[in-house]
């Protein structure tokens, strides 16, 4: 199983990432998730989002999540790219891609990695509202609850 974990300010090219994953030996299925910055949150227009992370620990925690996914499903490769810095509405924030021989493993591992990334990887978002005020985004209960489906199945 081959994994790539990257934290960067630059945007990423979904087609290029797909090509790399599809080249994993015997790959028949590539599942990809892209998180996109929305221009509204909790009723407010958001102008800019600032993303902060914990260099080193972020990459380690994502590697550990991929490792757990690969123990549960037969996956060939996984790539996670997460952007940090200033992002505008419509920007790509995060990429999670998984290659597998068959689609079900690719779908489940991709969703698993994304769910745990949301709850464990040390990133924080600050929203700059259109009116100029700033606020740190609060963690959402729905993200904690999303992990339940993986616990019940294990």
């Amino acid at each position, binding site marked *: 199983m081959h994994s790539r974990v990257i934290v960067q300010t630059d945007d990423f090219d979904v087609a290029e990432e797909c090509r790399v994953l599809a080249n994993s030996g015997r790959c028949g299925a590539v599942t990809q998730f892209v*998180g996109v910055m929305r221009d509204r949150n909790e009723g407010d227009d958001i102008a800019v989002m600032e*993303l*902060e*992370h*914990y260099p*080193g*620990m972020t990459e*380690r*925690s994502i590697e550990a999540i991929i490792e757990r996914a690969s123990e549960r499903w037969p996956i060939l490769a996984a790539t996670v790219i*997460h952007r940090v810095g200033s992002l505008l509405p419509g920007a790509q*924030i*995060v990429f999670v891609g998984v290659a597998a021989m068959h689609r079900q493993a690719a779908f489940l591992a991709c969703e698993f990695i*994304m769910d745990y*990334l*949301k*709850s*464990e*990887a*040390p*990133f*924080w*978002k*600050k929203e700059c509202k259109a009116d100029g005020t700033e606020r*740190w*985004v*609060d*963690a*959402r209960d729905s*993200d904690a609850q999303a992990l339940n489906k993986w616990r019940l199945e294990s």
Partner: protein
Amino acid sequence: MITILFFAKYREQLGLGKMNFTLDTALSVGDLKKRLVSDGGEKWAEVLLADNTLCAVNQTIANDSVEINDGDEVAFYPPVTGG
């Protein structure tokens, strides 16, 4: 000496992202929090004693009972919101 890091909202609340701290004796994470709060006061209590404050020692999640050794990197941060 250990390194202590603060992230996101906590970094802003304390006006501090990184500090060094000299270990004169063995300390657990819980002990360290108490020491920092007793040195720093109310503002530090708000950050370090909040129910949902997370701590990592050497980039691994740690609860209050984890022992801290000389040279360790200790981080305090709020619940994560990436993705």
